[in-house]
């Protein structure tokens, strides 16, 4: 018995010591990074922990640029550690942050967790960095604004610029005798008409949850503007406010009008897109990152001439303009302040100067205004229309709520949204559950 006690005591002491170590690597204090560190550029391999498709434009272009830089700097290499699945990526990045093992460059949205890292001095101030590199003014203000924290500070560099549209099939709308909606509030009736004509109104990837969360952001963005979610996430606004109640009611109506395909909560990204591209669903809400699938000859010829898009409809008393909607600049790249040195700065200067023209040549929208996107040879006229649309984006951005709320409230919102739209809960239950969840979790996340 004595032996058992002694063993337990030793185990507890070791555990305490280990836990103490892990704590030691955690809490840090804010520090100012020298944005132009002196010293020689000593080439070494650096890493970028990122959440982007391995064969996507950003990685392809940055690989070419890194190879070019390595030719003049033998010993340099940029290792891409990508986890395209966003929830898995966030877990990986947050765990590495907790272990104090973040690499030189890492992707993050402007989340409460990222703001804590910024406050601790883990990330280089992107405004200072881009200004010091002489590149700040070349960025689209909307692209930078998307990356900012609520206090206006900027710690992430954008690599994309996207516009989110509601794509629709003209022939299916015509078959059901409906026109594109003028107001968000027209959509439920439109869904009923489409269902009556035997058509799935909207294809939705419910499995990934962020697509449904976009719909939660739309109505309040129109009726109360972009500050609503900024206040809501801190508990300063409530879903029981008029804007929130109207949104919950609208979402519930989308569900009761059977706007989304049956079993949407277990439908994945490609299945949802297939529903639209195969002509089964009339509408599909997705961004310009899918231009190559929806606005080129890759699209099924049977629906190609019928596909068009409209931007987020307004509401009767909309406080935001028709040209203001979700225009994300994608997940941003943060620069680790602890490993920032002359090499990292020099590479970033080289890469960020070359990047805009290289990414625009792939047919993607650049986060900067100093280049013109190349329209691919196999594009349909919609491609040019979408690219031109990027020059007419208003100043207010509908922020995706999954980047705004604290993670616990966000998880609960995603769960409750599915229940609300499936008709398993009613709007008042939804509102009260979410308000109490946010009240419980926001203080710790935004302290």
């Amino acid at each position, binding site marked *: 018995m004595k032996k058992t006690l002694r063993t337990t005591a030793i*185990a*507890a002491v*070791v*555990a*305490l010591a*280990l*836990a103490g170590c892990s*704590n030691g690597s*955690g*809490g840090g204090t804010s520090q100012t990074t020298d944005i132009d560190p002196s010293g020689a550029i000593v080439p070494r391999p650096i890493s970028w922990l990122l959440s982007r498709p391995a064969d996507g434009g950003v990685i392809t272009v940055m690989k070419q640029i890194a190879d070019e830089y390595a030719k003049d700097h033998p010993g340099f290499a940029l290792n891409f550690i990508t986890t395209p699945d966003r*929830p898995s990526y*966030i*877990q990986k990045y*947050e*765990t590495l*942050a*907790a272990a104090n093992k973040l690499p030189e460059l890492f992707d993050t949205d402007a989340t409460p*967790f990222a703001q*804590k*890292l910024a406050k*601790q001095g883990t990330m280089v101030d992107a405004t200072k960095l881009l200004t010091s590199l002489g590149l700040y003014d070349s960025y689209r203000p909307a692209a930078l604004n998307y990356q900012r924290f609520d206090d206006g500070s900027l710690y992430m560099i954008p690599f994309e610029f996207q516009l989110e549209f509601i794509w629709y099939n003209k022939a299916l709308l015509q078959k059901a005798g409906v026109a594109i909606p003028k107001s968000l509030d027209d959509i439920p009736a439109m869904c009923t008409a489409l269902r009556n004509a035997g058509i*799935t109104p909207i294809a939705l990837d*419910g*499995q990934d*949850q962020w697509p449904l969360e976009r719909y939660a952001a739309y109505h309040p963005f129109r009726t109360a503007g972009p500050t609503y979610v900024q206040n809501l996430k801190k508990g300063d606004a409530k879903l029981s406010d008029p804007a929130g109640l109207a949104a919950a009611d609208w979402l519930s109506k989308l569900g009761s009008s059977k706007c989304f*395909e*049956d*079993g*949407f*909560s*277990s*439908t*994945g990204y490609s*299945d949802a897109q297939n*529903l639209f591209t195969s002509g089964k669903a009339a509408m599909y809400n997705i961004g310009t990152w899918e231009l190559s699938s929806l606005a080129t000859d890759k699209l099924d010829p049977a629906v190609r001439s019928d596909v068009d898009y409209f931007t987020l409809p307004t509401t009767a008393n909309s406080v935001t303009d028709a040209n203001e909607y979700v225009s994300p600049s994608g997940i941003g790249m943060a620069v680790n302040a602890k490993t920032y040195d002359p090499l990292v700065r020099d590479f970033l200067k080289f890469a960020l100067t070359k990047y805009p023209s290289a990414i625009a040549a792939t047919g993607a929208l650049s986060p900067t205004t100093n280049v013109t996107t190349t329209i691919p040879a196999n594009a349909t006229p919609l491609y040019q229309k979408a690219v031109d649309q990027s020059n007419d984006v208003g100043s207010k951005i509908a922020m995706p709520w999954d980047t705004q709320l*604290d*993670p*616990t409230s966000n*998880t*609960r919102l*995603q*769960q*409750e949204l*599915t*229940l609300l739209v*499936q008709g*398993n*809960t009613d709007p008042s239950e939804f509102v009260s559950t979410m308000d109490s969840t946010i009240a419980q*979790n926001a203080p*710790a996340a935004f302290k």
Partner: protein
Amino acid sequence: MLPNRSRLSVLIFLVPPLLLYGVAVLLPIVQSLFLSFFSWDGISDMEFVGLTNYIHMFTGDTVFWHAFSNSLGYLVICLVLQLGGALIVASLLTSLRRGRNIVKTLYLLPAVISTVAIAFLFQRIYSIDPVGLLNQILGWVGLGNLERAWLSDINSVLAAVSIPEGWRFTGLYMLIIFAALLSVPQELEEAARLDGASRWQVFTKIRFPHIRPVWITTTIMATTYALRGFDIPYLLTNGGPGQSSELLTTYMYKTAFTSTNYGYASTMSVFIVVECLVAVGLIIFTLRRKDEA
């Protein structure tokens, strides 16, 4: 009694695995217990909160209790499929004279397929749009009114995520029980039959008492695996819709790695450890007592 040199060599061989076990299993449990008294997001300073996490878990967290009751439902479905199914198949196998190995291999096959592949497979089977195998079969046999999105319906989703886990390991437990059944003395069974015992009586009075020790082990294995079940529900539904298929393990994982609330997640992990120990204690207590009776 082993001679001194033998005892020393036994110790030399036993201590390293014991140390490894201590570092890999016991230490994290003690660490979790320690962390459960703190509030910690991984990057800020740890804050001692005493029993706050436990009080919140037991009295203020409705999702926790929802997840707990789902875990019990998941456990029951897994046990019925794994132990019940295994016992039936193993009993039938003993009366099979030819093709035993083929049947055994076929039943064991799901246990060697990767979890991710199983999750994808069942996602297709349960799908309604495009129509999956299950809904297609229901349509063919005239039960079209039962067609549904099995993974989206809050009434069917828990069973839908439990069945793949149950199905997967039925073959494994069947093999163990089959091996135990083969060891039942044939002469005892024959004597009982000569005395006029029915098949059911042979099973309950001779076969089952004989395999009881194996049955206890199998039950413990199946129960602890089911209580720790995570991957298939996480991959199929991520606990949804709502919290309808949320298990304690998936909730704990999200609390730790999505909410970065490591303190509270540790509190749940302590609960899971205690829950597993209690379950094993109950199984041994119940089945041994019957044995003695």
